[in-house]
């Protein structure tokens, strides 16, 4: 075997190992990030597949990135937002009442969960927030990113993130108060 071929093989091997490690470490996390935007598990799987292929293709760059975690979140968020621009997703997934559209004869995990308990109501309310509030809540409370990190990731001013968090809490408060009143 020629030296160049050996180098290529080693390079290719390490690239594939890197891909496997990346899929193990970030696969489930990225699926949930994508889902928080798209609200469709099938499309989220496709988005994350694309993200990993993009990372693999740009191995020479991404494998050297110091804060890879922030980078892969950013790529997944950008991809999800691109997909959200598509009419299909907007109309069929986001534009309709997501929870009402679960028509499987058996209750889906969401369905099982979304019985009228308080936690279910909070989850439902979070996912029904407008995108910019939903993403801020998800990144801050679910992913535990700091305001600075979210600001860098979304390229939005820190004060805006802070305002969005405040506004999200207010909106959730209104939604939950409304539901409680209605249920009573």
């Amino acid at each position, binding site marked *: 075997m020629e030296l160049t071929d050996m180098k290529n093989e080693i390079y*290719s091997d390490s690239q594939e190992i890197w*891909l496997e490690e990346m*899929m193990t470490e970030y*696969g*489930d996390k*990225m*699926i*949930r990030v994508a*889902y928080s935007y798209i609200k469709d*598990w099938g499309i989220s*799987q496709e988005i*994350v*597949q694309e993200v*990993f*292929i*993009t990372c693999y*293709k*740009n191995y020479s*760059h*991404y494998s050297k990135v*110091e*804060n890879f975690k922030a980078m892969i979140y*950013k*790529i997944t968020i*950008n991809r999800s937002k691109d997909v959200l*621009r*598509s*009419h*299909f997703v*907007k*109309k069929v997934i986001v*534009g309709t009442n997501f929870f009402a559209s679960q028509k499987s004869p058996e209750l889906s*995990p*969401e369905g099982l*969960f*979304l019985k009228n308990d*308080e*936690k279910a109501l*909070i*989850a439902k309310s*979070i*996912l029904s927030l407008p995108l910019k509030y939903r993403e801020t*809540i998800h990144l801050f*409370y*679910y992913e*535990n990113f*700091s305001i*600075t990190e979210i600001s860098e990731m979304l*390229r*939005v*001013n*820190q*004060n*805006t993130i*802070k*305002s969005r968090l*405040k506004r999200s*809490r207010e909106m*959730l*408060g209104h939604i939950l108060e409304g539901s409680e009143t209605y249920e009573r």
Partner: protein
Amino acid sequence: MKDKLDDVRTILEDGVYKGYKFTEESKRKVRNSIKKKNTTWFPNFLTIAVACGFVGYGFFFVTQELGLFEKESLQASVENKNNEPTTVEPLDLNGDLSEDLPLIVNDDLLENLSLPIEIQNVIPTISSKPQIYARTVSDGYQISLTFYGDEFGVNMIENVDLPKNIEEYKSTRNKIWADEENLLINGHDAYYSVNQKEMHIFTKEKYFILHGAEEEQLLQIANMVDTEKPVQKINLVKYEEVMMGSAELSEIQQPILLPLDLNEKVEFLKDTKSPVITARKNDTAFEAMIGYSSPIDTLDIFVTQQYSQNGNQHIIQQIQRDYTLEKEVEINNRKIFLYSNGFHHKAYFTHQNNLFTVDSVISSIPIESIEEILAAIEIK
């Protein structure tokens, strides 16, 4: 509400997200996709290289001899020394950069921008200047402008890419919304949805998205887009993000000049309690930040010290680009610059390799108190 949200992780993990994973099937698809690329790369490359060699030579010969060829795609019409129009090679906008890299918003990018940068005359209630970001996309780049507003701002995106990519976006796109209607903006195909307050405009080399304003305003903005501006060869420069890890103040070697008792020194902050102090650092830079809740509207007022061995000129340039200078004052041997974009205050002064800033929403703090904060920092 805050307490309930602190539990969001458990709520979502045990509920909506329960049982959903990145599946083995998806992993297999990723592996298959890259294997296909790997196994066919060499023969493809060889075939393409040989074919390109022959075709290229033939093409070159014919075009040189007969002068028949007019290049399609991203041609920049430039003028030579004799002011005679000529054409240059199709623009390789991305160069060696990979996709989805942040870019420095340099003069080249701004000069090539077709989107209007001042729209306050159309919508007086938004920020006077936008925040601008750029990143690479497929074979080109994307530049986005965000104007802040009370509740909703205006976002504008300009994608500059090879004509074949723009054509592909256009032919594969789905409707913005069911109410989408077709329009012509300066003779170019455009699509508009009242429901989504969104418009897409396609030219040969650019694809614009305008979002957020009411119909009449959005149409006015659309007519301000310079759809005929030719694409020029520009210098895309990757933005080197300064990666810093969280740190304790005690771990920072350089002097921290930010007083931690600002709420005792500045009248406006005297009733604020429990400021949030954060710090980040790497080998050559650090950032220490104190966040106070405004006594007026509880939004944060951030006071920051940023130190960098290489100086902070790039941050200052960004402030100067994104904000308008409102005031310049000299207090306590420092020159304080007060900037605003109609929604946010950004004030700073520099001392050696340190940059001190105050960042807040305009309604959260009076300008005099910002001066007071920056004047209270003891520089040695």
